[in-house]
């Protein structure tokens, strides 16, 4: 323990294969969530992001039943639900949260049924906990390439459509006047959100997918008013919080009361929340200054 790094990284941290998988997959999911999250917060679609994460779980529980890879269940259902939300009026700000809630209600109702069938046919009663909380230490190395590929799709949508997306998020009237297909852009953004949250729900759990989508982006938007900086900063904060959370969770294996480790999601959420509060205290002045 004379090595100063040994105090932070408990022995065996970098050699452990579940930790490596968690660091890689968690890092990818966090980066995508942070970047896509900047637009989620700008557009006021936090609820849609949260709902899509939960609905993707419906697909995950269904995929256990029919025996396909959970990844396709998660991602496919998320994208499908994004389409339904757009169809029944997610665009109008007034009815948007209502439509989101209705879709989420129907989705979770189905999830209840699928989980019940899962539990009665395969006797896996732990599924409910996995659904709600998830755990990053259970990812297999095999799914990482696919997760990375789908993450690139989500990032690609945001980066390719960056300008029209930004304009239609900040001022949709101006975007319409410039001839930007606002509705199409909105749907593309919702699909990017759906992919981002589905991937992070699968790899690091649903609590973290909402936390990483909204928290870092809201913090970054407090610290800087430049959208480009905010997007990059959100990605950075998300990755930092995730990695630090994994390190702390690994360290906590020796902590009381049970010596089997505190959950990663608790650490990451606590870090993100603390960051947001700090940014709110610190952010008022710089925000003013940068407006110029």
């Amino acid at each position, binding site marked *: 323990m004379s090595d100063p790094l040994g105090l932070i990284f408990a022995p065996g941290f970098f050699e452990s294969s579940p930790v490596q998988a968690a660091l890689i997959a968690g890092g990818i999911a966090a980066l995508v969530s942070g970047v896509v999250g900047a637009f989620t917060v700008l557009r006021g679609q936090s609820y849609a992001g949260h709902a899509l994460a939960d609905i993707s779980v419906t697909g995950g529980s269904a995929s256990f039943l029919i025996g396909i890879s959970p990844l396709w269940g998660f991602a496919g259902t998320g994208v499908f639900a994004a389409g339904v939300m757009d169809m029944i009026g997610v665009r109008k700000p007034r009815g948007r949260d209502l439509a989101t809630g209705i879709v989420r209600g129907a989705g979770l109702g189905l999830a209840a049924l699928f989980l019940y069938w899962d539990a009665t046919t395969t006797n896996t009663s732990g599924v409910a906990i996995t659904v709600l909380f998830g755990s990053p230490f259970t990812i297999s190395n095999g799914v990482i390439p696919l997760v990375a590929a789908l993450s690139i799709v989500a990032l690609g949508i945001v980066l390719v459509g960056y300008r029209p997306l930004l304009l239609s998020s900040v001022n949709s009237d101006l975007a319409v006047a410039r001839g930007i297909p606002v509705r199409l852009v909105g749907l593309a953004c919702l699909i990017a959100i759906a992919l981002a949250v589905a991937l992070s729900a699968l790899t690091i759990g649903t609590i973290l997918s909402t936390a990483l989508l909204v928290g870092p982006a809201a913090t970054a938007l407090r610290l800087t008013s430049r959208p480009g900086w905010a997007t990059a900063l959100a990605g950075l904060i998300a990755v930092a919080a995730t990695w630090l959370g994994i390190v702390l969770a690994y360290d906590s294996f020796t902590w009381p009361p049970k010596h089997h480790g505190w959950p990663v999601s608790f650490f990451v*959420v606590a870090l993100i929340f603390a960051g947001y509060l700090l940014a709110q205290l610190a952010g008022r002045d710089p925000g003013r200054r940068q407006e110029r």
Partner: protein
Amino acid sequence: MLFASFMANTWIVATMVAVVAGVVGFFVVLRGAAFVADAVPQGAFAGAAGASLLGVNTLVGVAAFAVAGAFGIGWLGRRGGRDVATALTLVLMLGVGALFLSFTSQYSDEIFSLLFGEVLGVSSSDIVPVAILSAACVLAVMLLYRPLLLSSLAPESSAARGVSNTKIELAFLIIVALATTLTLPVVGALLIFSLMIGPPAAARSLTSNPLSALGLSVVLAIVTVWVAIAASFETNWPVGFFVGVGGAACYAAGRLIVSFRGSRVQLSQS
């Protein structure tokens, strides 16, 4: 069997739950607060884990977390966007819940029923607390009916009349927290909001008079819960499934009726 004596408690509690959900849900829809109605129960669910850790009554843990969540959303929402505040409060509560769950291992059997509802396990001793809480909820809404309505429909004119919108918002959040505490064990954390937004949204699209919309919302909520319980009893499937799908069906029916009416009006005009 469906009306056997051991089911009597279930019918009584479920009806009270539906009345509260219909009344509170009407204001949830009016204020566009679907996310709040969703986040408070889901976060409060984590309180049940804390209660089981400390060995106190589940309802106490749920109530403590629900009220804490309401204050958290109110406090954070004043300084930033409400949806961001709601999302962050929710994930913080769930994160703490995950921590509690990792400390206790005896709890997992109860989780499914708290998430998705358990109607058959209602005992006579559950009725009294549920009755008191639902009476408190309905009474609070009745007392605050006018200011709530005004600040929901026209926040500016409500502020001009000296009604503090922040205070009303906080009162509303606490009412949602109360309603949550009492509906959670019956309908389940994930689907309370289905009951709180499906029937009221349908009622609101069918009539524009606030009082009759409120009444219709209660009636639709009761019908949804009754049908859900009967179907759940017959099929043995989780009641949450029927409530979730029933809520969405209410909303869809309301939308269909409105669009049918709308097209007829447009036709007669042209």
